[in-house]
């Protein structure tokens, strides 16, 4: 909770240091001074910053994030819709990056120093250095333009419709793709470490098949750091979502935030960042709970 409060205060203060007055933007550059002053009073922008923050907070806890200065729509509506779209994108990206990244890491660790290990680790190192926007552009070029498999951009509709799925493919592929290298590298090193532990030697000594040693003993113990990074990577995913959503015109939180920042739409910026911070806190909590499931030695009171 202090994180969310602190973040909201920080964002609030940063935005109030911004040169550029939303009242002037709404009224237009040629509006007379008294009209601008009127709008400013209406929006409460003439109050001291801390008063504005207090009022904002008291409304926010009741689910009222104010209205967009530009569209006059409820910020909570705009942010909620965008949040669901981003969630869809991030979860799809997460799932496919896990399905690819973890198996690669496991196989590379088990078949250490094999061609597969070397090849996948070199690829992972190269992949870590690729700019995400180029991956997105190449995905468009290859899968949308050359092969014509998927649409170039936009959101096609609900997830269960064909158009919705088709539109989701490329952005999810791009966003998930940048997570795969880090995930594969981490899984590999984590498994390698687990394979050197005494319990693995014991398991082998009692004649357990190597497949079972890896699956039952090494994998389960190696997952703890991996789960931590999966949680941490959500920050990266939401950051990457900004670029992905921009490239693919995906109507999500990142795109909403960038547009709002560029148009100085304070309430929307605050709303998007508040929701982002809340999401992180929730994810961190879920990761902590997962720890307890994976490692019974960790107990929470």
């Amino acid at each position: 909770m202090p994180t969310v409060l602190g973040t909201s205060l920080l964002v609030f203060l940063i935005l109030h240091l911004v040169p550029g007055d939303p009242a002037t933007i709404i009224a237009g550059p040629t509006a007379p001074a008294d009209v601008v002053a009127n709008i400013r009073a209406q929006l409460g922008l003439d109050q001291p910053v801390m008063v504005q923050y207090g009022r904002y907070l008291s409304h926010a806890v009741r689910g009222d994030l104010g209205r967009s200065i530009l569209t006059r729509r409820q910020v909570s509506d705009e942010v909620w819709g965008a949040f669901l779209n981003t969630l869809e994108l991030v979860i799809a990206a997460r799932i496919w990056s896990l399905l690819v990244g973890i198996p690669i890491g496991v196989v590379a660790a088990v078949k250490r120093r094999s061609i597969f290990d070397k090849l996948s680790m070199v690829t992972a190192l190269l992949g870590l250095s690729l700019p995400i926007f180029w991956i997105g552009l190449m995905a468009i070029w290859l899968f949308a333009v050359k092969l014509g498999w998927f649409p170039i951009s936009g959101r096609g509709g609900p997830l269960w419709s064909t158009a919705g799925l088709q539109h989701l493919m490329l952005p999810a592929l791009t966003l998930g793709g940048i997570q795969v290298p880090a995930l594969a590298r981490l899984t590999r090193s984590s498994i390698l470490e687990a394979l050197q532990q005494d319990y693995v030697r014991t398991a082998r000594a009692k004649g357990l098949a190597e497949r079972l040693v890896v699956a039952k003993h090494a994998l389960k113990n190696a997952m703890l750091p991996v789960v931590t990074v999966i949680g941490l990577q959500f920050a990266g995913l939401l950051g990457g979502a900004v670029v992905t959503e921009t490239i693919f015109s995906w109507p999500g939180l990142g795109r909403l935030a960038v547009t709002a920042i560029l148009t100085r739409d304070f309430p929307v910026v605050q709303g998007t960042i508040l929701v982002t911070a809340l999401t992180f806190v929730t994810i961190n909590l879920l990761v902590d709970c997962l720890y307890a499931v994976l490692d019974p030695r960790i107990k929470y009171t």
Partner: protein
Amino acid sequence: MSASPERSEAAPPGPARADAWRRLWRDRTSVAGAACLALLVLIAALAPALAPYDPLRVAMRERLQGPGALHWLGTDQFGRDILSRIVYGTRVSLSVGVIAVGIGLGVGATLGLIAGFSRRLDYPITAVMDVLLSFPQILLAIAIVAALGPGIFNAMIAVGIGAVPGFTRLTRSSTLSIRERDYVEAARALGATSARIIARHILPNAAAPLIVVSTLAMAGAILAAAILSFLGLGARPPMAEWGAMAAEGRGLIAQYPHVSTFPSLAIFVVVLAFNLLGDGLRDALDPQLGE
């Protein structure tokens, strides 16, 4: 009795450093990364001599040519020579890395030392850094750029500020562990001031991880600044900056993918070189982490 075996932590810097150099030199990939970086610095320094054309020269008749004999990497929609723009862009990207990491390291290490040394200031600094760490660096950078206004210099500052929390946390934890060592206690018992302890004992011993993280942070900073420019929040046209160049090719991706691809590959090479060198430095300076 003469060669004391218990000098592990207070080892004199000379031989240890020589060891690190030898390990670094033996690691082929980090040598490759360092060589690549040396080459890039050279390219940046000699840009006017190396670039075949003026990076801002507009020639509408030569627009959107593919790679060829006259323009090795082709031209963009204004007929500007992409190779020349990439050569000049090396200057921008390398300065972005140096300045952003300089800010992150300077501010972050200072705050980290203060947090590690002062019990009173530890909590507030750590609390603020935890808040900053809790949301994506790129979103933080975007918010700061919005506050300062778009532009390449503001992007450097934003990326630099975004890197502060990581450096603070690292320096704080090194400081906390080093200040408990016997040699610090010995120095204090001899009457050394805090400033002397920091300068003579804490900083030299905390330097290795900071060097490693700074190198890797260069890769991250260059990438982040390129992303800001790609989003239109960093370098403004017509500046020859790689992220902005890639953005200019965005609408042309269907027919002229080379316009975005070459600048993106340039980013890739720089970032990879820093990553390789950073990995190598980590293995060389911290042998325990190696295989």
